[in-house]
């Protein structure tokens, strides 16, 4: 072929970029103009309401006077309650420290250079540390009953402990589901499908209403712990399916080679299969954690004070009742920052891992 059309070198510059991406034909031009109009109008409204006409001081009467602007004063007035719930004010550094520590730990655990074996004992130690910090009663810390826990620390704790504790359980269930022993397979499939078939709220209802009936007389476990157990069991079924995907992605030759070398089942899993499968499942595990983080908001239905519940309580205050939009935006923003950053990370990691496979 002699008459190959050579693509002209793409021109740079903002005008050309706009021509290519916004105004390439008539339809596109119309769409772009409508979109730009709507975006500008929306952003102008948001800036007007949220910044220009907004009241930032914690002064309810000033807020009521400025009827066409946001009242961020409600946040400066209520943020401590929304974030920490009814945890004693003087001791709020403890949940704060616990949160900072765990966010740091999660970030470290997600960075590939930190994927070492010492992460495991560090996690266990951190969970024990979390208990000491939150409950207190030792090391000169005053004792705080867990009915006083609330807000963001509670939300984070339910999600983090839920996922971490569900991790080993999920691995066992996934292995069980792929086991060659029929009875073990049946039990694992039954558990996984039962849990995945019902909404989380039914598991939480079970934890709050039915669970006390299961225990022998005189033994009681408090509501928070029951909800936490429910969340762990619920998450483990979802993680089991994630891990099953990872196990299936390990080529059959790997199992066969391990068997040929005379490794036992558990050796094969520990040294050959798991290290490969776990790498694959990290992005979907993060996604599962994100769902759990969002879903912990359901505990408000059984009467625990998570981040959403404290926000709801904050706006029952008659003085600040009118400014519910600001409070919900504040809480939504907290959820958004956590979920969006983790989701972006999981996406990047997935792309990176896929690239690594192609080499």
């Amino acid at each position, binding site marked *: 072929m002699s008459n190959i059309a050579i693509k002209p070198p793409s021109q740079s510059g903002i005008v050309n970029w706009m021509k290519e*991406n*916004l105004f*390439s034909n008539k339809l*596109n031009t119309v*769409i*772009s103009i409508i*979109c*730009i109009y709507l*975006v500008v109008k929306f952003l102008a409204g948001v800036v007007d309401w949220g910044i220009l006409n907004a009241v930032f001081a914690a002064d309810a009467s000033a807020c009521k006077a400025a009827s066409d602007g946001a009242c961020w004063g409600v946040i400066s007035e209520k943020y401590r309650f929304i974030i920490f719930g009814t945890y004693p004010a003087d001791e709020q550094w403890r949940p704060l420290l616990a949160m900072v520590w765990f966010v740091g730990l999660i970030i470290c655990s997600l960075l590939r250079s930190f994927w070492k074996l010492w992460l495991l004992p560090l996690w266990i130690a951190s969970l024990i540390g979390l208990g000491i910090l939150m409950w207190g009663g030792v090391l000169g810390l005053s004792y705080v009953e867990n009915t006083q826990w609330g807000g963001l620390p509670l939300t984070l704790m339910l999600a983090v402990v839920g996922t971490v504790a569900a991790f080993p359980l999920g691995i066992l269930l996934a292995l069980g589901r792929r086991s*060659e*022993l*029929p*009875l*073990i397979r049946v*039990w694992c499939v039954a558990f996984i*499908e*039962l849990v*995945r*078939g*019902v*909404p*989380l*709220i*039914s598991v939480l*209802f*079970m934890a709050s*209403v*039915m669970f*006390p*009936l*299961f*225990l*022998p*007389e005189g033994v009681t476990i408090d509501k928070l712990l029951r909800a936490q157990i429910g969340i762990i069991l619920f998450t483990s079924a979802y993680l089991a399916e994630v891990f099953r995907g990872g196990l299936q992605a390990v080529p059959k030759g790997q199992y066969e080679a391990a068997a040929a070398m005379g490794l036992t089942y558990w050796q094969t899993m520990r040294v050959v299969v798991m290290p490969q499968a776990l790498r694959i499942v990290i992005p979907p595990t993060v996604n599962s954690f*994100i769902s759990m983080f*969002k*879903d912990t*908001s*359901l505990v*408000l*239905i059984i009467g625990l004070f998570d981040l*959403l519940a404290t926000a*709801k309580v904050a706006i029952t205050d008659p003085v600040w009742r*009118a400014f*519910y*939009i600001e409070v*919900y935006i504040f*809480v*939504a923003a907290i*959820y*958004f920052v956590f*979920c*969006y950053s983790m*989701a972006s990370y999981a996406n990047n990691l997935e792309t990176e891992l896929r690239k690594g496979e192609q080499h």
Partner: protein
Amino acid sequence: MSEPLKSRKRLSSLIYSEKARGVFAQILVTGGIAFIAWYLISNTFENLANQGIATGYSFLSLESSFGISEHMIEFTPADSYGRALMVGFLNTMKVSFLGIIFATLIGFVVGVSRMSKNWILSRIAAVYINLFRNIPVLLQLIFWYTLINNALPSPKRALEVLPDVFFSNRGVLFPVPAEHPAYFWMGVVFVIALVGVWLLRRWALAHRDRTGQTFPYVWAGLALVVVSVFITYLVCGAPTEMSTPVLKGFNFKGGAKLSPEFLSLLIGLTLYTSTYIADIVRSGLLSVPKGQEEASTDLGLKPSQTLMHVVLPQASRVMIPPLTSQYLNLTKNSSLAVAVGYPDLVSLSNTTMNQTGQAIEAISIFMAVYLGISLVISLFMNWYNKKMALVER
């Protein structure tokens, strides 16, 4: 092998034999589960006996003595708990069904927009997806509910958006045709016409395979449905009476109503689920190789034919399984109705167990219903996957 080693070998072969260990492990696990189950159940019976709570499902036939604000079948406080749960189930189905339709529509539009070459349209779609996906759906529901209750005026100052359509903090009211037997018969004829369309399609496809001639069954079917339903309407006396909402005292009478509870649940579930559907649509369309579209255009197919006969059938193979699981998620998430007070299955079960104390029975009923729905859907999925699986040589 020497003689004394033989007996030792028999024992060790039992330990080292994979089969024996397998049997042993299974017995151990099953026994463990049976023991735990027995322990929990015996505790439960003991506790129930101590608290004087009767077991069994006989409470379902007792009089409920509570009212339900929204019911698709007749319900009064004199009706039984069983009927109340039925009302709840129908309400769950109603909100899930509408939610699935709207979420799919919005999801397709957003998913296609996300793939658009138009930069700003694609960015708007991306912002929409990230925003509504990363905020808990419960927070969204509660937000919409609070907004409808506080931002909309009272019925007395309701906004009349269209003639006889009112927006107020009691919900949206709009006129509907007044009750008349004609509508029942129109429904019956509609269903019969749908069966007719299905038969017509079968015949048209067989005809095409036999002779190569196409028959416009879509248009013919549409005409069949519209004409037959319209004729029924005329035959039954062509009722024109409407039921319009009218303000009486502090509230509206007449017309049909979408309650704030229903609306907030529907809006929240729809927006949240549509972000996931948008991503599914996008990855489905991306999964069809570009060559397929090009080849079909080169064969002279029109763009609509390319989409209908080449791209969508292949994309749907990728899209349908995750779509179904999103539909299932939406149905399960509709149980959050309890937070805004929409009388769905879970919410009415909750009322029932608070009144009767029959927690185990009430929870077991709604868990069984959700499990049943999941089971039906996964059976459908298996059937569909088999039907759609690539036939490989």
